């Protein structure tokens, strides 16, 4: 079995934690070759992940921004002899993998949470209200995995790094600009602690209460859809069925009611704390520690006392 892994690259640097988690999943399937769209240094960083045997790096501008037409071409150009193509179930992965699968006449398997064997996988459906076990009948299996469901592979590898070229740049799409949010905080999907705010926080200004608590704990900031829709927090912080899936050691939900779509993104956290003024809020049904309180009093007090 041979696995081609699309590495996670963000702003020209390897997303080490995410890539190492995908590598753990990939290594359960066979020998892993990582494809890195980015600078050589990102490739070298991937080469240190113990579960990766070989690294291919493509430094072409045309793949640097993750445009699906080019990245899928690059994956296909390097897929000879591969039995599996795998990535993280990030937006970057989900943008590209279904395109690759269709070009191989295969059905993509999204959001895998468990690899049973080389063709059998578990994945959640209906916002995680059910888990399906599926057997892929395709010659090449194309799958994205939830990083929250796998441990990161260790470092200490020394895979050879080979430079590969893109055979042709698609004229169909062009990159204009990225507006990435640099917060200086840990990345949401790999943070050990996440503090999330919901509609109850009330405004973008007051969302600073959430960030202050996260900073005190050295954690990442998350948000419910309602908080993002209302403009309190940027879109990349949305946790849930249609946002990011997190499973930190500690998840603190503040002013979040606990809709099923939100729970889908955080219910595998080790410890869940809920702060909500409504004692009937469904979030308390999944919380290990619930505090019925007004967040405007409780959160500053908590930040101070920690």
């Amino acid at each position, binding site marked *: 079995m041979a696995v081609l892994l699309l590495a996670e690259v963000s702003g020209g640097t390897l997303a080490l934690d995410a890539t190492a988690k995908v590598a753990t999943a990939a290594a359960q399937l066979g020998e892993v070759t990582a494809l890195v769209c980015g600078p050589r240094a990102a490739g070298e960083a991937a080469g240190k992940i113990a579960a990766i045997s070989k690294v291919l790096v493509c430094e072409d501008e045309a793949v640097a921004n993750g445009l699906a037409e080019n990245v899928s071409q690059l994956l296909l150009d390097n897929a000879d002899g591969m039995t599996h193509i795998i990535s993280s179930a990030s937006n970057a992965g989900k943008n590209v993998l279904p395109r690759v699968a269709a070009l191989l006449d295969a059905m*993509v398997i999204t959001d895998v949470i468990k690899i049973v064997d080389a063709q059998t996988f578990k994945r959640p459906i209906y916002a995680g209200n059910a888990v399906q076990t599926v057997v892929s009948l395709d010659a090449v299996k194309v799958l994205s995995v939830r990083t929250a469901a796998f441990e990161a592979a260790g470092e200490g590898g020394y895979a050879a790094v080979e430079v590969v070229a893109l055979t042709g740049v698609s004229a169909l799409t062009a990159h204009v600009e990225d507006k990435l949010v640099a917060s200086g905080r840990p990345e949401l999907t790999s943070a050990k602690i996440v503090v999330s705010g919901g509609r109850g926080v009330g405004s973008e200004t007051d969302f600073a209460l959430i960030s202050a608590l996260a900073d005190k704990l050295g954690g990442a900031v998350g948000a419910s859809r309602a908080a993002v829709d209302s403009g309190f927090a940027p879109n990349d912080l949305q946790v849930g069925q249609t946002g990011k899936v997190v499973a930190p050691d500690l998840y603190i939900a503040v002013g979040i009611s606990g809709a099923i779509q939100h729970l889908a993104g955080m219910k595998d956290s080790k410890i869940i704390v809920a702060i909500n003024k409504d004692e009937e809020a469904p979030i308390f*049904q999944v919380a290990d520690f619930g505090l019925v309180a007004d967040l405007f009093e409780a959160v500053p007090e908590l930040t101070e006392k920690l």
Partner: protein
Amino acid sequence: MKILVPVKRVIDYNVKVKVKADGSGIDLANVKMSMNPFDEISVEAAIRLKEAGTASEVVLVSIGDKKASETIRAGLAMGADRGILIEADTDGDIEPLVVAKLLVKVVEEETPQLVILGKQAIDNDMNATGQMLAALLGWGQATFASEMEIADGKAVVTREVDGGLQTMTVTLPAIITTDLRLNEPRYASLPNIMKAKKKPMSEKTTADYGVDTSPRLKVIATEEPAGREAGIRVGSVDGLVEKLKEMGLV
């Protein structure tokens, strides 16, 4: 310019989903069904382009059982012009790859300049059909759109990406998949619901298109996820701090 919008009939997002006791799937008996919320956003986006004079016609297509016609009617009531119902010869969910292959045939017949799809269906949560359709047609794709503008034979699309937003252009004809922030879909007014009943809807079957509908993923089990038990209430912030310290979390 014609816009094609595929719409899917799914369990309403407010319904608490139950797994059948025998592990054979999801209990769909007597549950409320609605248009996939992301597809409502797609329909809204298409109608706005028509209202702005950019598009001339909005065509909906749904693949599923006969009741998918209700989903098409719901989109027609929002303001789309006509519908195509493709009745599937299979039970249960139809895989995105099959849907994409059927949509290729519809695109060949209808020759739209733009196909707008929801980024994911909230039942199988696959997030795949748009990308697969783009691949099979050899078109460019702009997924997870939170803003879009059509000008000079191109779509300028802002996408929700992992670290924020990305703006890109894609040459028409193209595929766009919609994210939550693109718009807020309108409610259909009663007069428009009445009017929608008279809008044309053609009925086809998957067999008409000669596409193999057999699944590539064989579902061998459907289970309830491991549950989570409610914990305890702490009476105060001090109580919470104490617990977190006890657990070694802070």
